[in-house]
């Protein structure tokens, strides 16, 4: 028998075992005061000063504040008045989502240099499974430091990183030495770490669940782990079991890389407006903006959609959605817009609109047909040219005139935000 076959016979079981016990290394990256940092980086005048990023609307609240502002007690969710009271020198900066998204994409690209398994968790957070990259880059600490260094050098931003055997603990770890931290938690450290930690500190236990757990006499994660799982199950149902594992620091959930999942089933964007909109003209402009986002993403993935869906949420949080299937699949901004707009015509919009969502589904991955008529061909070529400009100069480089004059993009990006793929973006 050739020698390496013999050897492989011995190696395989070990590899197998490793897989079963699932000794993983998961890295969690969390940008420090992301929006505020981006603003400070792009505008040197703001550096070192207490700033707060707010939405553009009148009824806005503070979305993020710089660490300088946090020192004075400025907190996310405060109104502008409350912010000024806490810190009289506070500078308010209206949020610019497009800038953040652009930066976020760049950060994700940095992460992809270290492992293909990157899960975007929100605009400023990502998980990376570095189990397979450890040897390549010289271990956990080296990877953590290299990522921090590259983000600092390329984007002039700081971040906090946690590296742990699973996502749950990694996320916890990244939060432990903010800002600009790097915390590595090994298996053996987990029990000690969780023992005294208040239950609300962990991702997944909010105020409501926390309150319920406290009525059971559970104050810390250590106590949660020791608490009988059966009672948790009775009390919380299916989540009970997960809570039990959370207390033990166990989390089997894999890092799901973007783009590696099944081919996207739909591509969509939605957005909550800074103020409710009832003017059809304004609604149309948002519709174009959203259609443009959907179209760009579809073209990037080389796909077209046979079905266009529109979702409208009104000021009273009621919503209505409708879809329309077209014979020839679409991915040009204007084509998506015109179908979405036709759908809107058939909907009864008698209340101010709070949110609009546009998506295409029934995707096909080839088949871009040149249009026969000249005016349509112009559209086609124009879109192509715009895409080329965006490819070179970034997503912000060129857009429609009706959209540029838009002073008030919503100030917050939802945790569901993903740079690409089928997840619908749903800013709150």
């Amino acid at each position: 028998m050739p020698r390496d076959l013999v050897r492989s016979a011995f190696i395989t079981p070990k590899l197998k075992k490793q897989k079963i016990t699932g000794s993983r290394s998961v890295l969690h990256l969390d940008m420090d005061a992301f929006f505020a940092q981006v603003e400070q980086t792009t505008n040197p005048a703001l550096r070192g000063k207490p700033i707060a990023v707010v939405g553009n609307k009148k009824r806005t609240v503070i979305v993020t504040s710089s660490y300088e502002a946090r020192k004075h007690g400025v907190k996310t969710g405060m109104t502008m008045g409350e912010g000024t009271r806490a810190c009289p020198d506070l500078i308010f900066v209206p949020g610019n989502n497009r800038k953040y998204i652009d930066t976020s994409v760049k950060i994700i690209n940095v992460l992809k240099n270290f492992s293909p398994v990157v899960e975007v968790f929100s605009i400023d957070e990502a998980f990376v499974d570095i189990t397979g990259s450890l040897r390549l880059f010289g271990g956990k600490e080296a990877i953590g430091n290299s990522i921090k260094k590259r983000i600092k050098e390329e984007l002039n931003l700081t971040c906090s990183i946690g590296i742990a055997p699973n996502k749950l603990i990694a996320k916890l770890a990244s939060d432990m030495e903010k800002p600009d931290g790097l915390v590595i938690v090994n298996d053996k450290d987990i029990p000690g770490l969780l023992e005294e930690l208040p239950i609300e500190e962990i991702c997944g236990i909010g105020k409501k669940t926390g309150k319920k757990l406290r009525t059971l006499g559970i104050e810390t994660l250590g106590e949660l782990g020791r608490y009988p799982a059966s009672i948790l199950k009775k009390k919380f149902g299916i989540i009970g079991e997960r809570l039990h594992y959370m207390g033990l620091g166990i989390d089997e959930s894999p890092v799901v890389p973007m783009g590696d999942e099944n081919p996207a089933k739909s591509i969509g964007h939605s957005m909550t407006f800074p103020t409710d909109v009832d003017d059809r003209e304004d609604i149309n402009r948002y519709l174009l903006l959203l259609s443009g986002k959907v179209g760009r993403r579809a073209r990037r993935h080389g796909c077209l959609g046979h079905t266009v869906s529109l979702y409208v949420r009104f000021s009273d949080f009621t919503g209505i959605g409708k879809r329309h299937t077209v014979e020839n699949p679409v991915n040009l901004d204007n084509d998506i817009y015109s179908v979405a707009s036709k759908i809107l015509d058939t909907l009864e919009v008698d209340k101010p609109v709070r949110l609009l969502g546009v998506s295409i589904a029934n995707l096909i991955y080839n088949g871009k047909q040149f249009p026969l008529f000249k005016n349509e061909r112009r559209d086609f070529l124009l879109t192509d040219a715009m895409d080329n400009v965006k490819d070179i100069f970034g997503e912000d480089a060129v857009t429609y005139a009706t959209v540029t004059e838009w002073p008030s993009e919503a100030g917050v990006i939802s945790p569901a935000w993903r740079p690409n793929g089928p997840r619908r973006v749903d800013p709150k």
Partner: protein
Amino acid sequence: MEFKINQEELLKGLSRTQSIVEKKNTIKILSNVLLKLSGKKLTIEATDLDVGIRGSYNAEVISEGGVTVDAKTLFEVVKQIPEGTSIHCKMKENYWLELLAGRSVFNLVGLSMDDYPEVPSFEGDAQWKIEPDVLKSMIDKTIFSVSHEDMRYNLSGVYMEMLEEGSRKKLRMVATDGHRLSLVDTDIDGDFPLSKGVGVIVPRKGLMEIRKILDEDDDTVGMRLEDNSLMIKKGNVNLVMRLVDGTFPDYKQVIPKSSDKSLVFSTEEFARTLRRVSVVSTDRIKMVKFHISTNLVEVSSESPDMGTAKEEISVQYSGDELEIGFNVNYMLDILNVVEEEKIKLMFLDESSPGEIRPLEDKNYFFIIMPMKI
């Protein structure tokens, strides 16, 4: 209202109405057919307000009158009755229709004929006439190019206009869905009532109904344009359809003027090649690539999930090498209706419209836009 009729005669009349009646059921009476008795004839009418049909059939009229009943139900009932049976129908109270056939008795719910919309009737003489075979061929060559998109209302039918060449008058039919175009001309007998360059758009559904009755016999088709409707008379059947209210795009602008490359294929073999190669494609829209080099065309298709397919065709070609993609279904739609043995594919480059014509110039041709590779 009471009559007796032969099963075959009634079935023939009802089957003509089946694809016309409203299927969505938004207005109940539109899913009904109208049965009306006058003289020695039974008239059967159906309409969805866009297309209407009226046919008259031999029946033994016992007492005059009329009623409407669900088209689908009545058709299914009559279909199940054995051929040759005499069917006896009678309207009872509250518009119930009693139908007796052999030992079977059916009582069908009906509605008053007074509520049935009036289907305009073909009155006066035909303005122009056309032989059924000629019209059939014109419809077959154009209808597949009609857009299925309800967004593109002005493309949802076949454009008809008249051309004058000296003393000869020609009827031209053009259809396009924005990606391909069919054009066919034919001599007509009579007068198209619109002036030169002014055409009408005949809806697809109406054309399909015309197409159906063309197969029945050789009676000449008479046509009339009146009040935004096209009326057709053939034998005992009248069809009327509301014209599409829209402006047909300037189709002449897309007819290529300078296609410097041309390839000749055997229609049949070319179609077979395309069908074979396109098997390897999972998408709803199947693209085939043509790699054209000196005296050789390589037709290929690929799908990431299934693999690749390739076939070579020898041709006479001496121009630049190039690669061009086409929607294979568009190609096959065309090849299916070409009667001539050889076709000519002409084009300028990989993003300009291509043209398919019979090798010997005929009265028709097609334009097809390539796909982006």
